[in-house]
């Protein structure tokens, strides 16, 4: 049996009722169109928000010192907490499950020069791990390494903006060149690119924290300790945060309940919260979208029902001349699937087209960026359509199969 034959049989019945078929199909096309637009917008929102998270590992924890706000063990409130190298060492050995850890100093913007070019750049002494915590991408050379720190080397890793300001197009000259930072010459060992949204993050210079303490501050003070938690599950991350807080509280004698003494930003928690939000949004969108499609299915089913009723006589004739119940079911079911499938596909293409159009002409705005329907959505929608078509056809098809030829053919 040549399969094309069945499709021709369906085509001839669909052709007979162009307007009806169009109206039916429209409901389905509209449903799919709306679903795609909704899902695409959801993705746009997600892309936009996740974009805010760029620049820094999503499992990062940043600990900065603050000022006590509570009296503790006879010590007054309002005491400034200052971290030192010992804090970093103790944390590093205590929080065993950390992945990367680095101390950092905040040294503000400093005049930096190379030959006759000057610029003001943010100086940020840190450990080698900071490159992984901040997730910078090296475009030239390397990030700081252990030797730089251990041997107090005057090595510097500069941002792309620093390079373009100081080297004015001679990019290749950057690595190996000596730049003057606060009157001290540092050798550039690498150039990085930062995906953070803030342009200023490209205007940074990272140097070994040990070198900075020796040549600039002469103290062992640090401003921030950050680490990543690797693959640790949320509960374990919470434990790590509490451990850090307890440790620092003990070392600096402050109340662990004092939230002003140290500030701990747990990025993974924020990230997780947004993940939860997106899950909720996606769920909501699918519910609304599927609801819309169900309205379409009911429409198709309804019209097919009427169609079967109208075609009672025809179906009776078909049965009298040898159509089996299965062939009738297959005829009606295929018709429903063809209508929903074809109309749905049009809705799908239109929806993706509109998303593409929006995506291209959308001005840069926060929290919304490149709405898109990806491949998995298209596949999901296609499967949904086939299921929808089948569902829409089942009842009318059963009804058609149950038509008795003698009743259908009875002359009124």
């Amino acid at each position, binding site marked *: *049996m040549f399969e094309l*034959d069945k499709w021709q049989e369906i085509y*001839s019945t669909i052709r007979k009722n162009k307007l009806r078929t169009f109206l039916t199909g429209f409901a389905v096309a509209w449903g799919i169109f709306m679903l795609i637009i909704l899902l695409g917008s959801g993705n746009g929102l997600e892309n936009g928000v996740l974009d805010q998270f760029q620049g820094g590992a999503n499992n990062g924890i940043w600990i900065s010192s603050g000022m006590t706000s509570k009296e503790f063990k006879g010590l007054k409130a309002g005491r400034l907490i200052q971290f030192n190298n010992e804090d970093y060492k103790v944390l590093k050995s205590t929080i065993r499950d950390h992945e990367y850890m680095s101390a950092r100093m905040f040294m503000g913007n400093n005049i930096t020069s190379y030959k006759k070019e000057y610029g003001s750049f943010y100086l940020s002494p840190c450990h080698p791990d900071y490159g992984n915590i901040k997730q910078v991408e090296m475009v030239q050379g390397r990030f700081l390494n252990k030797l730089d720190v251990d041997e107090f080397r005057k090595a510097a890793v500069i941002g792309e903006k620093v390079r373009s300001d100081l080297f004015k197009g001679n990019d290749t000259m950057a690595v190996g060149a000596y730049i003057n930072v606060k009157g001290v010459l540092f050798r550039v060992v690498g150039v990085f690119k930062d995906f953070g949204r803030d342009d200023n993050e490209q205007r940074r210079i990272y140097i070994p924290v040990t070198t900075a303490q020796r040549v600039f501050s002469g103290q062992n003070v640090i401003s921030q300790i950050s680490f990543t938690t690797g693959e640790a599950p949320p509960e374990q991350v919470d434990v790590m945060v509490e451990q850090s807080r307890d440790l620092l509280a003990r070392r600096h004698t402050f109340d662990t309940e004092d939230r002003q003494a140290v500030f701990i930003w747990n990025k993974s928690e924020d990230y997780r919260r947004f993940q939860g939000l997106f899950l909720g949004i996606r769920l909501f969108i699918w519910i609304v979208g599927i609801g819309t499609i169900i309205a379409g299915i009911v429409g198709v089913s309804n019209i097919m029902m009427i169609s079967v009723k109208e075609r009672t006589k025809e179906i009776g004739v078909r049965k009298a*001349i*040898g159509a*089996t119940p299965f062939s009738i079911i297959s005829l009606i079911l295929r018709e429903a699937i063809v209508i929903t499938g074809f109309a749905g596909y049009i809705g799908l293409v239109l929806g993706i087209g509109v998303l593409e159009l929006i995506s291209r002409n959308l001005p840069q705005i926060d929290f919304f960026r490149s709405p898109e329907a990806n491949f998995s959505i298209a596949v999901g929608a296609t499967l949904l359509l086939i299921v929808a078509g089948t569902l829409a056809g089942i009842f009318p098809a059963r009804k058609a199969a149950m038509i008795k*030829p003698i009743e259908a053919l009875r002359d009124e």
Partner: protein
Amino acid sequence: MIHIRNIHKSYTNGQNSLHVLKGIDLNIEAGEMISVMGPSGSGKSTLLNILGILDTHDEGEYKLDGIGISNLNERKAAHLRNRMLGFVFQSFNLISFKNAMENVALPLYYQKINRRKRNRIALEYLDRLGLKDWAHHLPSELSGGQKQRVAIARALITRPKVILADEPTGALDSVTSQEMMDLLTEINHTGITMIIVTHETDIARRTQKTIRIIDGMVQEILENEVRSKKPEGIKQVRTAIYEKVA
């Protein structure tokens, strides 16, 4: 060809049971042309439906060409209808959105014969019935007589053993009716058993036997004197069909 013994059929509608056929015995030999007459409600249509395997009987025995017909599932029944039987109806029952050729070809679709082949065969049959020029017309563009000839072509295309005609001339004028009977007679002469339900004596008289049914029972079986008058044109059709079937 058709042997039925003591066929009973009742219809239940809520609490009322209507006993329509009350024990019918009938033997129809291969190649016979039979008419069934009777007043409305006598059960003649029910009998035809049972003979056509469109309906089931409650009791009794039905053998069609040696095959026992009882408790068939729908698929099997559909298959037998398709292979063994041809139907001709009073209201033609052509499918309105299919042209004459497609209507004639439809039974072959259910035999899973490909489109090109079944359309070619359908055209041959339409040609023999003088409707070649109308092959691509929709039923709504045909006259009553033409529609009935398309329906007959559709009944013939599967080369059935029996043709069951339910008031085939009921919607036709008297001249066309006679032409239709000429045609059915010719088809019968090719060896196809013909059973015609009618309430017109004129029509019944042109068959070999008339079975009169009253109140769900066979009241009498009349032997008719078959008219020998046959127009020339029809003879050619007969020969053509005969050759095809033979």
